[in-house]
């Protein structure tokens, strides 16, 4: 069985095969033995090529959160490889809030010519104001929020005209 995950904008593939006395993981063509696999509430224990690991985990929707030896990972299940690229293209034509927060200022208006890096919106979360810059030069096509409105993570706040090229 093959699993695909995305972690920090990188895709990873892993195959797990069942064998008589345990499992085998295959990553980038290399095989690793998995033995003594046990699963508890939020805890996995297994040996990988003989080395014992304790991993804490939690699942939410398509994301598996992992803590391994003090490091924290969030793996998103990748169903279709195009998804991650699709988002990237969209991003260059709009500004969205990376986190839930309050839209405190939108210093541009529809039809404004803006340059890359210019602040298109200021969103406040946890007392910190974050200036969201224009991803490229362009013209403001749409403003989706009013100042003072609450915005969710990844919601588009300002749209730019599509590029002519």
């Amino acid at each position: 069985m093959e699993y695909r995950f995305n972690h920090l904008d990188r895709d990873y593939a892993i195959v797990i095969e069942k064998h008589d006395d345990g499992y085998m993981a295959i990553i980038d063509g290399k095989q690793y033995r998995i033995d003594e696999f046990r699963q508890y509430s939020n805890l996995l224990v297994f040996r990988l090529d003989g080395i014992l690991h304790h991993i804490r985990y939690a699942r939410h929707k398509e994301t598996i959160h992992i803590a391994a030896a003090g490091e924290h990972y969030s793996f998103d299940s990748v169903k279709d490889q195009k998804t991650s690229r699709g988002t990237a293209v969209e991003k260059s034509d709009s500004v969205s809030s990376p986190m839930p927060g309050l839209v405190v200022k939108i210093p541009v208006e529809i039809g404004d010519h803006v340059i890359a890096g210019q602040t298109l919106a200021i969103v406040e979360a946890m007392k910190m104001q974050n200036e969201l810059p224009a991803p490229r030069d362009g013209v403001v096509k749409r403003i989706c929020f009013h100042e003072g409105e609450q915005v969710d993570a990844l919601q588009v706040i300002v749209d730019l005209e599509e590029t002519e090229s």
Partner: protein
Amino acid sequence: MFKKILIANRGEIAVRVAQACHELGIATVGVFSTVDTGSKHLRFMDDSVWIGDSPPQTSYLNITRIVDVAKSTGADAIHPGYGFLAENAEFARACEDAGITFIGPGSNALSLVGDKIASRNTVKKVNVPIIPGMEGSSADIDDFRSMAETIGYPVIVKASLGGGGKGMRIIRSDAELADCVAAGQREAQSAFGDSTVYLEKYIEKPRHIEFQVLRDHHGNVVHLCERECSIQRRHQKIVEETPSPVLDAQLRHEMGEAAKKVITAAAYTNAGTVEFLLDHQRNFYFLEVNARVQVEHPITEMVTGVDIVRQQIKIADGCRIVFSQGDVQQNGHAMESRIYAEDPHQQFMPSPGRILYLNEPQGPGIRVDSGVYDGWNVPPHYDPILSKLIAWAEDREHCIARMVQALEQYTILGIRTNIDFLSRIITATAFRKGDYHTHFIDDHEQRLMPKFKHQRVALVGAALISLTGKRGQLSSKSAASPQTTPWQEVGRWELSGD
């Protein structure tokens, strides 16, 4: 002694204060906003009252409402914690007018030291060195410009009513001045409800060293030695320790006496912290007085054995400080790591959301002051601090070892936190040697980037979790019970066909 105290705060500090109250046999009233209906701090209160909608302006900054609640619940004192209204003289005065004791300095002392401009002028009079800068604020950007030219760039803009780095901006050239002042004013307005900012000379790569002072209503004043808080990101402390690796007995004595002079000159009572910058030549400059219990107060408690929140309550009640300066000893070494809901890989962007799994560390010398629990939905409206991890040991090296192990144990899943980032700070060679300053994080950016050394193990773990799917989750419940051996569980899982 007080009968009932209203705690005008939330999160870990509200929990901390409630515990101190109960130890003194005092009942507690908690307050909460709409989004905080299920907040952890309310579990530590004898009574709790809703005070308004989620935004801080309508809830934890709502002076009238909070004082009304104190009156209606029969509280005879209010503890403001830190942040929110803790250093708001108007709030202290409203309490005084209502006949309720404000646990902190009186409103007059608070106006004086809480206002950084006024406090600089007070400090000058008692010959404690200060950093050159504006004597007062101004609405005119040209006043900022001419002061910047007089003292020379770089300069820093600060919120007059502020603390915790909110409203602060470093300005390196005239071209940045207007934007930075405006941004500082906006942040100050939003964080403290007052947009007043001022300008001072910016000292490159200093160490941030502060002294905890207690002063009672009978004129007794003691300091509880220093805390070094030089590890900061965006001007906000994230790791603090005591003793400082660079102070010797002589400098400690000089700075401690200077701190006491400042507090006495301001006719300040209760617990306060005098912050200094220490430059490369070991000159110290007064920075500001923090007129509240500090986030990092636990490390002082660990090495001096003095319960600072308990002292705050007793001093407010008119008790005398029963020990003298000579009784204060630093025993061992303590360190604090602040756990924040933020993503160090994305410029420390706040990361509110639901905690899906929480494992707080335990062990010898380990203390966790926490405001969250497993399943809590961390709201986006307030400060991103989740908890504080404090380690104590008989020396610095051992203290670091305990902190490293505790950080490794500390697991918060579902939201992003700075836990592994803190680990990389504590294990950095320069930090271990005590060789650091307030720009440590910027200077060691590469070293502090995530290594993801255990990526393969994590990936295998994610695949195994996907493999077991829902059936794995169901049987994991019984796996927790001691009657079932883990091997029986494994036997039940099979590869699904698709």
